[in-house]
């Protein structure tokens, strides 16, 4: 099966090439400092600064939602999400935004929330005593 070996060899080379090129698609979660430095589209993971303002006024602009995110290094930046306010946003534990820094603000058009699982409410509901 000589011919197959050659083809298999080619495919292996291609897959190695692809996995190497994958590094372009892959990144670690950036901090705001890194995002400011490299001006590229990055993912920033952090916690919602619950003491700062969250702003969403659909009557004004349904595609503008802003909030403050604290990255693991403790930096806090205003994030402008070019979307509506995601469901369950207030309850989220961790937020991952994808976008880039523009001046002092992080403009994002994708967001992923890590919420306490919807499938896992470890509460025992009590019957209402009438």
């Amino acid at each position: 099966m000589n011919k197959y070996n050659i083809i298999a060899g080619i495919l292996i080379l291609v897959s190695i090439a692809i996995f190497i090129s994958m590094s372009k698609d892959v990144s670690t979660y950036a901090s705001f400092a890194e995002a400011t430095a490299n001006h590229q589209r990055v993912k920033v993971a952090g916690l919602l600064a619950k003491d700062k303002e969250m702003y969403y006024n659909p009557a004004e602009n349904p595609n503008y939602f802003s909030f403050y995110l604290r990255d693991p290094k403790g930096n806090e930046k205003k994030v402008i999400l070019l979307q509506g306010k995601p469901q369950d946003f207030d309850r989220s534990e961790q937020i991952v935004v994808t976008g880039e820094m523009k001046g002092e603000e992080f403009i994002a058009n994708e967001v992923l929330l890590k919420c306490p699982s919807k499938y896992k409410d470890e509460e025992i509901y009590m019957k209402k005593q009438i």
Partner: protein
Amino acid sequence: MSPIQYVGEHQWISFSIHACIILGFLASINACISYYKSSKAELTNWKTYGRWAFRFQALMVWSTMGLMFYAMIHHYYELEYVRHHISDDLSLKYVFAAFWEGQEGSFLLWMFWNVFLGLILIKTSKLYESPVMGVLSLLQVILFSMLLGIHVGWGEHVLKIGASPSLLVRETFVAPIFQNPDYVKLIKGNGLNPLLQNYWMTIHPPTLFLGFASTIVPFLFAFAGWFKKENKAWLKPAMEWALFSVFILGLGILMGGAWAYEALSFGGYWAWDPVENMSLVPWIMMIAGLHTNMIAKSTGRAISTTYLYYLLSFVLVLYSTYLTRSGVLGATSVHAFTDMDLQWQLILLILVFLSLGLYNFFKNKKTIIQPTDEEKINSREYWMFIGAMILLFSSILITGATSLPVYNKIMQLFKPSYAGQVIVDQISHHNRFQLWIAVLVAFLSGLAELLRFKEIHWDTYKSRFIKLISISLGATLLLFIAFYKSLNEPTWQHYVLQFAGTFAIISNLTYLFAFLRGNLKLAGSAMAHLGFGVMVLGILATGLNKQIISTNLFAQSDLIEGFKTEDYMKNLVLLKGEPMPIKNFEVTYNTDTLLDPFHRKFDIRFDQKDDDGKLIKSFNSSPTLVYSRNESQTPSSNPSIHHGLTKDLYTFVNWLPPAMMNREAADKIEDNLKYQTYHLQRGDTLFYSAGFGVIRKISDKTTHPDYEAKPGDLVLAADIEFHQLNDSNTYTAHTAIVSRGELYFTLPTIQNDLGLKIKLNPTSLESFYPEHDKGEDVTLKENQEVIIDGYKVKFEGFNKSVAKEKYASQEGDIAVSTMLQITSPKGTVYPAAPIFIIRNSQIQLVHDFIFEEQIRLSCIKIDPASESILVRFYKTKTQPVLDIDLAEKAPRNDLIVIQSILFPGINLFWLGALTMLGGVLLSGIRRWIV
């Protein structure tokens, strides 16, 4: 301290479930060993032992499931699994969905299908029975171990073997409530997530799990063949089962896509989510195996490749089980799973079968004789082999990218500070590579069909092949030229894929006519490949031409560098009743209705217009909102899809006023409002900061949209006309309050344009519907008349058949209504019918009110001897007072944000996918029946 004696627990059922699992575990070990022994020496009784042991563990699987269903149907909430997944208000038709919502249930579902397949294999696998059933029993052993729920002390560590579905709530939680021996009465079920309460959740998991379970069977035959050092005999049953597996697993995956598209607001049928990827990859490998199996059957080549592909397909199912159930995927998936804390057991599951498969492979490799000469380049087998290799390649790429969290986890084992890597944009990542896989597969599936199996007379066939391939390519080119403009902003890669997809369709059609002459019995593979081509075109159409139309045409938006306008103009605000023009449509949000406590339906009308603004057609779209049982949680949004032949319009509600989101948000808003109370009579005026309101009407009837009439209701409603400064408009608000038995509830209204919230204070009720027992009593006989306060009161007789809608009736009531006729001094005649009830030997009165005259009438006594009644007449002397609560700066409640997406060509995708599976089914049926 003596242990608490609990009352009302059904401990027997917990005990029985646990016993069944342990017995099933032991029986499957027994089956495994017996079959192993019998595979060594056919003449012994071991095979019979194996069979009976397998059948016994089958019985244990069924019993475990039966007992769990019994406990779920009977709401035995003291069982943790029942409490977690069932609730009193959950309809019985969702008991299956609730059963496999949890991990324990879905493991059992898998085992159930293994049993089903095993019982068929006992009958059909003949000479291979012992190794086939032995390995299948081994899988059952490990799956049973996942449910054992045994904790073994290991030095300081506690080793946890399995998580049992038989646990009681009090064994799972520590809570003060368990100090109460009677706690069972106090707990209630958590229930099924309302998002999962639909028929998809009933049919998708069983289909998918039959698909997953079936992937072991081709491997079992491959294993058995090598184990018995047989060359080729196993290829036939393996292929039959591979066809079955490809069909059913494909169907399961497709159902998942349909569910995501139809019922969830994911915005499509496929998102390259890790959970989706890991169900796709075993399917791709099964298809690769199926093709090499075909080669092996006809030429004797690629036997070992087939073995490895089948092994890989099954091991990938196990790996997918690990990924989705170990919690390793974390935040990378939209699918959430409860962590059963079984990581090491799941890894063991993979390792056992991987090493067993490879051990058997290498041990017996030498005994499998394969031809040593090379396949000719012009044979169908050669290209099929290449195609299978490309499928393998596709699986490696998908699995590799999806395994990034596993890689991160391994790195963190060595270096805890390692920062995890993520794919920034997984959809474009996978699309970029899988596009080329699709191109190659589409070309190969077109080309290979036109070649023939075991080609020997190439010289004579050559000219025919060239003719056919030329026709196909020519027709493809024509079609391509005709349609290449139909894609929206394609890249050259997309053109290549479009060409390849079209070629797959045309060449397979050519094959159908040139070779089969329409003989459908043999058409399975051509149909499957044709379907693949159609599906590719459907994917292109929906992927590239998908258009978000919910863009406000008037909104001014500054272009933001680096972002496409589509990226941030997805949402559209709709005000109730106000038409909003968008591209090609005018959208109007008309009403919203609460269907039941968990579902709210929005009615949104779409008027399709042509360029001149002329109406083409209208249709309604009704997306829904599913509320969670947890009052603080945001509801989930279910889309509504308007299906069309060439395109679908997909709409969902992306945001709605917090007051409608959940109880907690609504309460918070209500708490922040500052109400002022006004005491007013009809015609009075109230003043607030920006204007004034006049009470136009006070009545005992309401048109409030939230009001549902119940017998015996007393309604008080008011119409208030508002005016504000510098505004010539008149705003009318209708608000009401209802007294129902011991309770009352307000029906507030929000005047959105004025930012006012208006409701009636309950003190108004006493003023209009007095409860005291004052009044003037008169005795009346039938047809007797008397004048009180200038009102003529006449008793017209009894009505013994009091209709139930007149009052809140109860079982065993004896109720009589007394028919009165009241004539006012002005001459207006009013009927009245106070009701006299004997309920549990107690007298109850139901007053009747003449609202217009402020008169209350009651029948307080009936004297059967004299056939007379005692009527109490009460008229409110002073004008009753309406107490109105009014708050300013109330947030709007008539505004929603929607997203609407056009999916052109989505039907090509479904048609293609179904044709593909239909082709597989056809091939299967031909082989299964013969």
